[in-house]
Structures are given as C-alpha cells and as structure tokens.
C-alpha cells in the first residue's frame, strides 16, 4: 500500500442529501472515510499527524497522514515525530483525532457550515465509555453531526463476507489488526462479545520487532531503517512458519533450503573509484625531488642562521678581548671610567662573559665543549678545603668548604650514573648479540619462543589494564579474574581504597586503639589519598616496555606478525580498515522473516503474557460454553480471517494446524480468507449504513444528553438489519 498519496479533494459533497450517512473506519493504521452504499471509501490516509514548525515563520502547523517527505524540508521536524490518537486500540487523544477528522472531512469535500450527515464510525470491541463519549461529544459539538452510530470493525468485516457468501451465520472472526488481535464468535450473524478475546499484539508489534532486530543487527545502517521502509519489508518478505522450531533448524544447519529462503536487501551503494596501483615512477621521482628541494632550502636557511650567529659571537669575543686588554693595560684609577661605558661592573664579570661567549662560539661551530669534568687535574686544589677540619677554618672558608663538598658529591654521582649507563648499554649490546646468535642458530625455534613470550606478555598487560579499568565497554567480559559481575563500577584500586576507608571509619573505637604506635600505620593515609591510584600510570612499567621491545623485534624479523590494535574494533561499527564492499551494504533477512510474525502466535516472544491466535480460538469457544448450545461444534466450520496482519503467507495453514490441535478430532475446520482483509470492514459498514433500518441504530445529540453515560456504556448496535 502506498504511504504517500496526494489525496484529491472530493467535489461532489453537495450531491449527497443531508440524511446520507458518512462512514468512517477509524483503524489503528489507516483512516478511511466515504459515503454509505458505495463500494470503496473516498479518502484513505494513515491515521497519524505530525506537528512540525515552519522553519521561516516558526509557526507550528499540522500535517495529517503522509506527504511527500521532500516537502518536509521546509519544516523543523526534530521535536515532533508522527503521533497517533490511539493508545493500544482505544482513541484517547482527541486533539489529534480532531485534526484527523478535520482533514478527512475536508478531503471529502465538506464545505457547509456543519456536517449535516449521520456518521457511522468504527471503534474497538468494548470501547471504554470515556473514549466513546468523548468521540460522540466531538462529533456532536464540533462538527454538528445530527446522529452517530458506533460499530466494531471486525463485525462489519464478518457481515460483509457473510453477504458475499464466504462465511455463514455462525462462525468465528479472527481479526488481527494494527495494535491488537481479536477473536469474535458469531451466533446467528450477531457477534458474541462475552465470548470474544483480545490479545494486545498486532501489525505494529511485528514491524517494531523487525525494526529493532534489524537495527540491532546492522547498527550502521540505522538511518535506512525508517518505519515506512521496515513496514514495506515486512509486507514483502515476512511469512508465517508452519512450525517455528523445524523452520529455524533449517537455518541453524545452514541448509540449502534456508539459503533459498534468505532475502537480501541491497542498500544504495556506489563503489569507490578504484585507485590506481600507485603513483607512477615519474610521479614518485617528482615528489622526491620536490621534497629534496624543500629540504635543501631549509638546510640553507639553517646554515645562514648559524653563520650569522657565529659572526655575532666572534665579534662579541673580539670586543670583550679588546676590553680586557685595555683593562689590563689601564691603571687602577682608569678602570671605573672604562667600565662605565660598558654594562659590566668589574673585570671578573667581563672575564666570565668572555668565557661564556667563547663556549657558545665553540658550540655554534660544532667543536666539542670542554666539560667541567675536564678540569680534573685541578680537582685537588678545587676541593682544597675538604680535607681540612672545620676548626682550622674561618667562617668564610667553612662556607666555601660546604660548597665544595656539594659540588664534589654531585659530580661524582653524575659520573657514576654515566658509568652505569655505559655498562647497561654494553650489557644490552651483549644480549642482542647473544640473541642474534641464537636466532642464526635456530631461527624457527627462536621465532616461536619470541611469539610465545609476546603472547604471554600481552596477555599480562591486557589483564592488568582490565583490572585497572574494570567494567568498561565490554562489560567486563572475557577476564580471567571472574566473580566480577556487571554493574561493578569501581576498578580494583578504587575498590581497595574504599575498603581502607570503610575499615578506617568503622574499626576505630572498638578495642584498644593502637593506631600510630608503629610507623607503618601512617602509610595508610598514603594509600587512602585520592591521587594514590593513578601514580603507577605515570611510570611505564617493565612489562609494557618489554612488550614493545618484543613486538618491534617481531615486526623486524617476522613477516606474518602484525601489531594488534589494543581493544580491537568493536563489532558494532562498520569495518573501517578495509574498503567497504557491496556486502557491507546488504541487509540480510533470514530467520527474521518468520521470527517477527511468529509473535502473533507466541506473544511471549516480545514479553506479552497472553495466548496467541490459535489458542485464542480455543479460549473463545470455551467462553462461549453454555451459551453456544452445541453450536461450538460447527462454529469452526466458518472461521474468517480478516485484518491487515492476516495477510502473511502461511497464516491460514498455521492456524488450521493450531486449531486442529485444540479441537476434538474429526471437527470440521474451515478457515476462510476475507475477500479483502483490509477494506472489508469499511465495506461492511458502508452496506450497513445504507440499510433502511440504519437510522434506528443511531443516536442523536438529544438522546446522548438525555440518556447519559450509563446508557452509552450499554449501547450496542444490532448488526443484522
């Protein structure tokens, strides 16, 4: 059924006399309105509204039914999805209902000051009186309808098919609609409400289930899975399995038949333009040349800069030397006058500046710098004061001595460290050589060992990581520690901290308080402090370092080794690391094809604790019990299937098998498909409203206000007129 239909406004409204009834089938998915006695409704549209805002003016407007989605670009639909007036199968939102009636009547061509026609409108079985009275009120007060009749859609459908000779006077209607499914027995052409039953499962649930399942299976194609599209998929592909268990086993065994039953929906996909094998030699050479040229330029620039710096420094040293010369030659008296012209205050300062300048000059020229340690021979007199006892020194000298001591110890430490580094380097070199030897000796075994080591280490590191960030995105799965359930929020160190805090809070005060007697007690506070738990993140730990070493080694020597990304790409995302192919844009419907409609027979699958269609028939016949007077024996001889959800292929056969299991053997069972399961309700109502006795089934505004709500509660039309 097309969702989008530009509905023409009917032009012959005035042709109908004022007592000609208007017939409305107010269904959960579609609203159908037309004239009594005609064979088809004039206007059909989806029973939903949308209230987006116009982007330019900011005006909230109302859109009823479906329209060209392209036109919705002028509206801001972000905060207003499609809305329905129904809660389950009961109308509760009469503001929406009014918009829908407005639209329906407008398209029917109504243009007088009020709707001067009786209205027959369908409602659900045993509609709550509040809903019924609100609907009556709306029709009377707002539209000025003279009289109203309510009826049940399934009953009209049964009556219609009865007139067509498809089903008989006594029978059973199975009506699986959009929100609910009903089984209604008929005796002498009248529905028996007392023996009816309703399960709150319908086409809506099937579509929703399919939509959820497919979007969980293909999360990255969510945008393609609109409600309308999934509804189309459902109508095109879904079927009812004769036996769910055996059907699903076909798929589990990956049987040939299952393969045939699998449907594939190819999403729009344009292959990426195939890249050439790579840039040509010429191109590569050109690029290299360009790179080289740029590098050359940079090098030149750096060279020029260095040259300038050397020049500057040379000038400076020359100046300083000249200054020093002059200072040495000058008399004591002249020194201040010479220095006054410079920024220096004493000869020493000039000297130190000179030495600094010469050092940086050397550095700039790339000559090795004389380190401080080079002046080792002078160490004896540099540390001349150390060996002399304090008593023999002046306070000034003591200060000097302390300084010397400090310098000496630091320089020694530095040297020791250097030594150690050198040794380590040597050791590493040695080990490398050793390893290399071993590798050359038996490359296979070596590689194997290395791999095993890598595996062990990476596992260890992973585990530690997981331990640290417990829970996380993989909901703490596949960790070996066990016993960590979902919903665990703290990682191990945080948990340890919490434990310490609680023991600290509750253990104090009972027994003797010995806290603080030992020095280790105070360590507790260190552990408790908040920044304690992440300090081990800062220093790279030995295992990780070893792991990186081994993996780099493996990368070198093992062509099959590749470094696995930590965590790995999650399965919910489209694979990113390889080019997307046609297969990535396919939606495969296998088990889903019959798993979704299966909920009509097993509502338990979606958590609705009610019996399915086949059992409903048994329940209905049981409820008929004493009233039936033996008719239940032959009631199964005329079972009518109606409603949109009865269109699934295989429905009839499955129902027949199911009912045969319930009924005693030998019972005649005949299941009949309605002539048009979707439109029959309206057609039946149309015939009903055009009957001579129809006016007796309606009630007027006067009746409504005189008789009151209690009367409306027990209002029930006679279907056989």
């Amino acid at each position, binding site marked *: 059924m097309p969702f989008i239909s530009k509905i023409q406004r009917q032009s012959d409204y005035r042709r109908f006399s004022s007592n000609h009834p208007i017939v409305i089938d107010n269904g959960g998915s579609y609203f159908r309105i037309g004239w009594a006695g005609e064979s088809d409704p004039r206007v059909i549209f989806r029973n939903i509204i949308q209230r987006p805002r116009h982007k330019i003016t900011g005006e909230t*407007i109302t859109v009823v039914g479906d329209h060209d989605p392209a036109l919705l670009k002028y509206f801001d639909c972000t905060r207003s999805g499609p809305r329905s007036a129904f809660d389950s199968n009961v109308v509760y939102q009469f503001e929406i209902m009014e918009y829908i009636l407005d639209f329906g009547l407008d398209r029917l061509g109504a243009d007088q*000051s009020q709707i001067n026609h009786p209205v027959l409108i369908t409602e659900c079985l045993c509609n709550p009186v509040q809903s019924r009275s609100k609907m009556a009120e709306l029709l009377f007060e707002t539209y000025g309808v003279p009289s109203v009749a309510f009826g049940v859609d399934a009953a009209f459908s049964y009556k219609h098919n009865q007139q067509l000779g498809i089903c008989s006077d006594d029978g059973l209607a199975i009506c699986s609609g959009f929100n609910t499914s009903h089984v209604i027995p008929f005796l002498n052409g009248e529905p028996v409400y007392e023996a009816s039953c309703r399960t709150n499962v319908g086409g809506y649930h099937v579509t929703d289930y399919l939509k959820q399942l497919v979007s969980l299976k293909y999360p990255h194609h969510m945008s393609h899975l609109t409600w309308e599209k999934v509804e189309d998929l459902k109508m095109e592909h879904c079927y009812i399995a004769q036996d769910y268990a055996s059907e699903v086993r076909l798929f589990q065994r990956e049987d040939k038949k299952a393969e045939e039953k699998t449907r594939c929906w190819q999403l729009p996909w344009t292959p990426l333009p195939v890249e050439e094998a790579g840039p040509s030699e010429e191109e590569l050479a050109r690029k290299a040349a360009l790179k080289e040229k740029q590098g050359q330029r940079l090098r030149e620039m750096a060279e020029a800069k260095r040259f300038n710096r050397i020049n500057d420094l040379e000038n400076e040293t020359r100046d300083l030397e000249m200054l020093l010369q002059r200072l040495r030659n000058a008399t004591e008296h002249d020194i201040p006058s010479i220095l006054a012209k410079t920024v220096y205050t004493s000869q020493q300062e000039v000297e130190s500046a000179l030495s600094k300048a010469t050092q940086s000059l050397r550095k700039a020229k790339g000559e090795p710098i004389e380190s401080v340690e080079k002046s080792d021979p002078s160490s004896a007199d540099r540390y001349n004061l150390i060996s002399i006892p304090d008593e023999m020194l002046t306070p000034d000298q003591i200060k000097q001595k302390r300084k010397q001591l400090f310098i000496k110890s630091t320089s020694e430490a530095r040297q020791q460290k250097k030594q150690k580094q050198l040794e380590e380097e040597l050791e590493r070199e040695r080990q490398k050589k050793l390893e290399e030897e071993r590798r050359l000796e038996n490359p296979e075994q070596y590689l194997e060992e290395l791999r095993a080591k890598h595996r062990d280490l990476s596992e260890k590191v992973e585990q530690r990581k997981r331990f640290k960030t417990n829970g996380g995105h993989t909901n703490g799965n596949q960790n070996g520690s066990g016993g960590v359930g979902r919903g665990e929020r703290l990682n191990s160190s945080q948990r340890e901290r919490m434990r310490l805090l609680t023991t600290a809070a509750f253990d104090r005060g009972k027994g003797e308080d010995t806290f603080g007697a030992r020095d280790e007690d105070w360590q507790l506070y260190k552990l408790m402090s908040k920044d304690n738990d992440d300090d081990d993140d800062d220093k790279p730990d030995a295992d990780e370092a070893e792991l990186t070493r081994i993996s780099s080694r493996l990368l070198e020597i093992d062509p099959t080794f590749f470094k696995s990304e930590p965590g790995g790409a*999650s399965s*919910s995302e489209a694979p990113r690391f390889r080019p997307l192919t046609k297969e990535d844009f396919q939606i495969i419907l296998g088990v889903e094809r019959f798993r979704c409609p299966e909920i009509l027979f097993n509502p338990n699958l979606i958590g609705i604790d009610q019996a399915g269609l086949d*059992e409903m028939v048994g329940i209905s016949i049981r409820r008929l019990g004493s009233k039936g007077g033996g008719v239940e024996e032959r009631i199964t001889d005329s079972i009518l299937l109606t409603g949109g959800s009865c269109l699934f292929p295989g429905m009839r056969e499955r129902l027949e098998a199911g009912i045969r299991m319930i009924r005693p053997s030998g019972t005649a069972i005949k299941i009949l498909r309605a002539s048009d399961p979707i439109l029959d309700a309206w057609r039946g109502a149309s015939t009903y409203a055009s009957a001579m006795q129809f006016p007796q089934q309606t009630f007027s505004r006067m009746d409504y206000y005189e008789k009151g709500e209690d009367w409306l509660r027990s209002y029930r039309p006679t279907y056989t007129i």
Partner: protein
Amino acid sequence: MTIGIIRLSDIYYKYSTGAPPCLNPVPPLFNVLLQEDRSCHRLKRYLLVDMEAEVVDAEMVLPTHMRFKKIQMYDKYPKGQARVRWKHLKQLIPAENYQNYPPEEPNYVNIETPPSMHPCKRICDITGYEAPYIDPRTKLRYANAEVFKVIRSLPNEYVQRYLTLRNAAVVLR
C-alpha cells in the same frame, strides 16, 4: 469587529483550498480589524505568512479554520494545544469502574486473553534459534557457543536493547 473576522475567514478558507495566493498582502482594513481581536491572531499570522509555493500546492498544511466546524481549533485550544494531558489507557481503565458491573458483562478488561497454557517458547535473543542456555551475566538466551561469544562481546547498551525486546530489561526508575 466580528464582521471583519467572518469575511476574513472566508478569504482564508479560499486561500487554504487552493485559490491563487493573491490575497497577500492583506488589505489594510483587515489588518486593523484583526489586530484588535485576539482570537484571530493565529489566523492573521497565517494569512501574512508566505509559505513556499510547493507546500501550498500540496495542501499538506492543515488549515486552522474549517468552515464546516462549529467550534474552531483555535477557539478550543487557544494556546495551540490542549491544556490538560489526555488520559492514557492505563488511567482510563480504573476510571471505568468495571468492578461495579456484573463480571459476566463484557468490558475492555475482561475480554483480554489469559496467558498461554503452553510452556513459553525460548528462543535465542540474537539469532532466533531455539535457545537451551541462558547467560548468567547478561541474562540473554543463546543457542550455541558462537552466539555466546557474540553476546559476551556486545556492549551493555545492546544487551539492554535485546532484553527490552522481550520486556525483560531492568528498568531503573
């Protein structure tokens, strides 16, 4: 004042039913009249609005004024929407007072189908196969070891969504 409004709504009605939108801009007389009447405020805004020609042609916007109605939408819901929240079915049912009526009388509640007599079918939440096992951690049903692997690699959000499908998710309120 009302004279102007009636005539304006006629014009508006014509406008909304596809007559060429030549009535923009509105003659000044109407403007003045309308500005003095609050109930027609929305109407006036409509008239002055320039909706895109395509939108007007498709007639997708439901007019706020319908000639055949005795009470117009903007009179009923001057704020643009109902002031009260409509009672959902859950709230409607208790107010029906079904307990005051004989139990054999059919009503919305007692015609509901009772739970099934058959044992509940257990199917794998992911694949739909028959599911002999339940994962104690996620409470998902699964068919075999492969599916189990998939379940264990599922993010929590997906686990919850699968559980919601059969109304078994833990809802924290």
